């Protein structure tokens, strides 16, 4: 090893610390301050996983990731609305609403990702009648060209609703400007993920996670600067590779894992080369083209240039094949399935992934989590045992 241990650049640490803090704030103070500074602007909440944020932004509003509340609030009211077998994020998101913490939002967008999320959108409609609550149908028949065309029509419907609320009818240029801005953010995040894969000691999964999460809680114009600053600072970051196994982490695409859990897995001896944390906010594998028909381009990109996902059922190729291909490309040693408790899409995927990984002789570990977990002893010992079995095999 050629590197020398020195004090880390404090600038990066400060960025990650402030991002982490932002992600722990159930009052959304950063966004509220931004709204105060921009009179007349409104904000729209986006429930996971993928939301066409460009439509909100081009309508002159601020898209925000409303993605549960971790350990930050206690669930007092939502428990009586959603049963014990429903995942935590559904309950904490509703709790945010029932405790008036989402009053500053003009509306909420939900999408066809799973059954509880779908019913949650109805429960929001009934309990918060002043809110603009919409439900986006993402098609599931990508083998047919009909699906892409349909999605563009669906985007138009959503856009019509948004512009009624904002009072601004976006032009093609407005939409393309928003696409370009989010392209820049997504490209920056893709680059950070590339750096993580190539040199995982340079930036941890926990750090890129808190950064991505912060990006869902602030104006994109501000966030793009932060992403680019991180990219500028990273090459100078002193670091030293450790003796760790290289893993791909899957299954945490909706409910947010506690940062402490990600750190626990890393400290147990894993370099997480890639993951699906907040995948919906990093959805596209390349830039959305800037052309004359932005809604068509967004729909086309959703269908043709998006990451595979537990909530996108594409009969053209299997998700397990994607996962195994990623393991090979990134030269990973193993896969960790980190699925949220009660998350049917992730838990169903696990059954398919497990079979395919076994057949491909790729070691794997299932870790179930809840956003509200704060003690990680069990995950630590499971991850450590797993790492040891690989290191000393």
């Amino acid at each position, binding site marked *: 090893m050629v590197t020398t241990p020195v004090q880390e650049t404090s600038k990066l640490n400060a960025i990650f610390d402030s991002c982490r803090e932002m992600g722990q704030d159930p009052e959304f103070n950063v966004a509220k301050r931004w709204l105060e500074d921009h009179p007349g602007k409104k904000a729209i909440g986006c429930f996971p996983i993928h939301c066409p944020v460009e439509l909100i932004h081009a309508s002159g509003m601020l898209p925000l990731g409303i993605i549960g509340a971790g350990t930050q609030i206690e669930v007092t009211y939502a428990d009586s*609305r959603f*049963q014990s077998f429903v995942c935590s994020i559904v309950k904490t998101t509703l709790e945010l609403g029932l405790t008036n913490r989402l009053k500053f939002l003009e509306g909420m967008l939900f999408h066809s990702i799973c059954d509880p999320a779908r019913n949650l959108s109805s429960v929001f409609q009934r309990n918060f009648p002043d809110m603009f609550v919409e439900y986006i149908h993402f098609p599931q028949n990508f083998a047919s060209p009909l699906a892409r065309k349909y999605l563009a029509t669906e985007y138009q419907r959503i856009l019509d609703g948004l512009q009624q609320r904002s009072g601004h009818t976006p032009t093609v240029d407005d939409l393309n400007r928003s696409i370009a801005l989010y392209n820049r953010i997504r490209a920056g995040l893709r680059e950070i993920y590339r750096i993580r894969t190539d040199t995982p000691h340079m930036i941890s999964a926990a750090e890129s996670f808190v950064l991505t999460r912060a990006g869902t809680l602030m104006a994109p114009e501000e966030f793009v600067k932060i992403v680019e600053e991180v990219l500028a600072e990273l090459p100078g970051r002193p670091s030293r590779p450790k003796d760790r196994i290289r893993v791909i982490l899957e299954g945490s695409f909706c409910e947010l894992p506690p940062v402490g859990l990600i750190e626990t897995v890393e400290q147990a001896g894993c370099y997480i080369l890639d993951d699906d944390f907040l995948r919906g906010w990093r959805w596209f594998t390349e830039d959305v083209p800037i052309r004359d028909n932005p809604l068509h381009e967004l729909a086309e990109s959703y269908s043709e240039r998006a990451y595979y996902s537990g909530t996108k059922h594409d009969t053209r190729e299997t998700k397990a094949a994607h996962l195994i291909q990623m393991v090979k490309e990134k030269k990973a040693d193993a896969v960790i399935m980190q699925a949220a408790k009660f998350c049917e899409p992730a838990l169903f995927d696990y059954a398919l992934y497990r079979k395919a990984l076994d057949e491909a002789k790729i070691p794997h570990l299932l870790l179930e989590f809840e956003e509200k977990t704060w003690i990680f002893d069990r995950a630590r010992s499971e991850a450590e045992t797993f790492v040891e079995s690989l290191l000393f095999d």
Partner: protein
Amino acid sequence: MAQVTPKSDYQGRIHNLQKDMIGRYYANLTAASEGKGKKAIYMLISGNPVELIEAFDMLPVYPEVNALQLAVKKQSLPLILAAEEMGYSTDNCAYVKADVGMYFAGRKTPFATIPEPDLILCNYVGCNVYLQWFEHLGEYSKAPVYNLDVPFFRTPGPEPLAEDINYVVKQLEELIEVLERMSGKSLDYKKLQRIMQLSGETGELWSEIKKLTRERPAPYDAYFDSVMMMAPLYCLRGTEDGLRFFQEAYKEMKQRADNHEGPLPEEKFRVVMEGPPPWPFLRQFRDMFSRWGAVAIASTYSTVGGIWEFGFRHDPQRPLESMARHMLQWNCTNRNFLQRYKQLKDYVDDWGADALVIHSVKSCRLFSAGQGDMREYFTKQLNVPTLLIESDLEDPRYFSEAQLRNRVDAFFESLEHQRTLVKK
């Protein structure tokens, strides 16, 4: 106090007819599994284009019906456990697990041998688990999968969006091409129209049967007896047999209504039931209500595969559009939660119910997630006494008989008490 009423053992002519007809349907599945029958098309119950499948002389296979039959016959648990061994979670839908377990156990059941699929037609109507389920069956069987994407009924108006109808119709046209390739013959439009007519008339009779429970007493239990009629409605819809069954069923039920016969000696409480039944313990569950003289006069579960009592009919003049409307609009699963509240409220008001019983099942989050909010709405906003109880539709481990019975008893005791107070 709960009255010790005799158990409901209502067994009419149609019960035997149902057994015969469904027996023949399962014999057809077994024949197909032996390569001596029709092509097997896996499909889902909730709003489907079975009329097209019938038009091509293919055989619909319903994994949901097979799974529930396994539960009724108390065969589900070992299969669920086998699937959990494979990596399925205790929190995954147990219909899927029982079906996957059965698939890997040679597809043999006490009622039929289930054929391998020739086509997996995922008519994704509302339930996201359907997508997972058929994705998995596709991987295991290597059969071709067609995801018939039915947009969720998500707009507040009474009609689905025009683009949604158009999108589904266009996909049905694609599906016709798929079926034409598989069968080597083109669609016989006249035949399709005849099938649509059969479905239309079947729907008309079913709708009339459902309205009979507005009578007092209701001639049958719209939850526990409806499930007997649902099998022919789904497995035989669009066939001459299916229509014959409903002609008989209407005759029998109408006669019972005219004679003021109900399923219990005395109808004391009229309830609306929400949610699927606990198939492994159907008898025990029914008895919990029968002993209180509680009869279901309407249920949402009997509308998972279609809602006919508010006017929908399959239309031979517009076959594809009416199939699309059936999938988009006229079934319980593709409707949003608030539309379900409305449906329940209509039953309470128009069928005359004393209470709402919500049976919340862990397996089916489409049905159950958020039913606490539903209870809130009915009790606080509408003042309808509401009972919310939990178990499962397939997994016997989640059925706690004593606990459920206590809850049911406490609920009806309190209803009875309120009645006494009003009388005084």
